[in-house]
């Protein structure tokens, strides 16, 4: 169980409307990622689902039941916060046991559940330490442990990895995905990092200023973004967006080409440009090419062993089959 439905949900703080009427269906067992730039309302949306914020209008429905007026603890959701929000004066054991203790569970059963959770999260050695004595990754695990023991209908993650260093982030990302596959519980995950969204999600919800721009699987969003915002947001490095004369040739107001869909040649091609900075990653080289038709340099993903001199003249050719066309309102269309 654990389907969540938002029906015409709005949220205003005073006179400013943060979330205009919004509808969203989250299926049972799905891993849904809310992604968008900071201030796009993704965290507010999560807090509305959790019940930490009240909706201004509209309904939040969990498992077919209207929970708009239900208190957060009765909604059966568990949340993992960005700052972990562990209770600093309690040991790890007590932190994990806290929600069970609050629900008045039998102590023997609490011990059993805490033991199970701590084993699955490799926390057995740290149970008697305080959060202050743990590393960032371990704290994150404790926060997840505190969520798991409750056996919730759905997990809510509010940018849980943004306080971790890059290496740990990749590891935790895998662990959370693994956890989702094993438990099959609905998870909603908020992030501003599109890499996290692409790698973890069953379904990505791209948000901008409180509006849903597009909902779809990672590859759907990648292959057919519905507008320039989604096109520019999903994918790393960013999609190259060109407008003006360069785009008119392809009968569009704006065209978008992903870096991997541009071929580079020093002999001939459609666009002539000058090589700027090259970033060598080993497996790939990201070449930034200055081109008259675009105000920003175009990014090209090329072979790892490509060596180009700064300032050299090159020709770029877009892959026509992978070209994205957008009209003057930024919406995608096909010819």
């Amino acid at each position, binding site marked *: 169980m654990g389907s969540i439905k938002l029906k015409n949900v709005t949220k205003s703080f005073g006179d400013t409307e943060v979330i205009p009427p919004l509808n969203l269906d989250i299926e049972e067992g799905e891993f849904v990622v809310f992604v968008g730039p900071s201030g796009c309302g993704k965290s507010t949306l999560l807090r509305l689902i959790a019940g*930490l914020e009240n909706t201004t209008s509209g309904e939040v429905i969990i498992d077919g039941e209207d929970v708009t007026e239900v208190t957060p*603890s009765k909604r059966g959701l568990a949340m993992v*916060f960005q700052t972990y*929000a*562990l*209770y600093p*004066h309690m040991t790890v054991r007590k932190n994990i046991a806290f*929600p069970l203790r609050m629900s008045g569970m039998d102590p023997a059963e609490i011990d059993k559940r805490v033991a199970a959770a701590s084993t699955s999260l490799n926390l057995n050695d740290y149970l008697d330490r305080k959060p202050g004595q743990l590393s960032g990754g371990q704290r994150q695990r404790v926060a997840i442990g*505190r969520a798991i023991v409750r056996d919730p209908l759905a997990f809510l993650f509010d940018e849980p990895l943004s306080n971790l260093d890059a290496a740990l982030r990749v590891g935790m990302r895998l662990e959370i995905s693994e956890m989702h596959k094993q438990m099959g519980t609905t998870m909603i995950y908020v992030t501003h990092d599109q890499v996290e969204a692409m790698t973890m999600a069953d379904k990505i919800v791209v948000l901008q200023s409180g509006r849903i721009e597009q909902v779809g699987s990672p590859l759907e969003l990648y292959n057919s973004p519905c507008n320039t915002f989604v096109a520019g947001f999903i994918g790393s490095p960013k999609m190259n967006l060109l407008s003006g004369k360069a785009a008119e040739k392809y009968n569009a107001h704006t065209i978008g080409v992903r870096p991997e869909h541009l071929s580079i040649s020093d002999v001939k091609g459609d666009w002539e440009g000058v090589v700027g900075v090259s970033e060598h990653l080993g497996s790939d080289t990201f070449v930034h090419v200055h081109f008259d038709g675009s105000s920003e340099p175009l990014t090209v993903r090329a072979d790892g062993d490509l060596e180009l001199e700064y300032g050299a003249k090159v020709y770029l050719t877009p892959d026509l089959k992978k070209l994205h066309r957008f009209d003057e309102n930024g919406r995608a269309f096909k010819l």
Partner: protein
Amino acid sequence: MSKRTLPRLLQTPAVLLLLVWMLVPLSITLYFSFIRYVLASLNRPEWTTPSITNWRGLGNYIFVWNNDGFWLAIYNSVFIVTSIIVLTVVLGLATAILVNRSFPGRGIVRVLLISPFFVMPAVNAVLWINMILDPVLGLQGIAVSGINEFSENMRSAPLIGWFFSLWPELTPISFRASQTSAIAVIMMVTWQWTPFAVLIFMTSLQSEDQQQKEAAILDGAGKWAMFRFLTLPHLARPMSIVVMIQAIFHLSLYAEIEIVSRGNGNKNLPYLIGEMATNNIGAASATGIFAVILANIFAIFLLRMISKSLME
């Protein structure tokens, strides 16, 4: 010169000054407590100048130990300080939580709350004992006689008169009496020091982590559970600061005791030392050393208790 020599050399004057500041009075007190030293004596004029030849050993300590007034003073010191600390912490916590909410005029209320702390202790004592607690002229006297007069008048009223005839006549309490003078001191000092506790608790409440509270809401904690498991542990450290500072200050209460009843019924250690120091400096010094020991026991005991019970 090695790397550390210069910094140490530069620190030396400050460290020396502090050491002298602390050690000189303490050693003089220790010295006096082991000799016979009085300010005036017709029989033994040699005792009026401090000298090692007047050595008395532990005599002063034994004299003080066997003095009934000493044990009463210790009892009063502990009673007064403990009561004040408990009352200020409880009242301060309650007030801080109330004032921490936002309401119109909060700024003014906060300033007014702090103001008792700016009143001089002696003035505080005079105000309380004369204007508030006086059985005739103080608010207490006025209130008691007002209530008595009211029930007296109502006794002749039809229908409800019988109810008022059941009322006993109230007698005002004299707070200068030996049974109540300690309570008067506790009341006035509590009034004055609650703002201090409020101030410290308020700043600490404002630094409480909001996400922790939200996590607790989702974990199903109610208002009381959040207070008990989040706010109280968070306040454990400021609480120990409030307790420690107040223990230091109130173990040396003097002005209030002098003004309320001149030590009648509320004589604490400093007041006893003061009385002894009118002549017997040796005994006064010995009492002073006892007071230092008591203060240390008090501080350590209280701090341990707080950190253990709240930090889980």
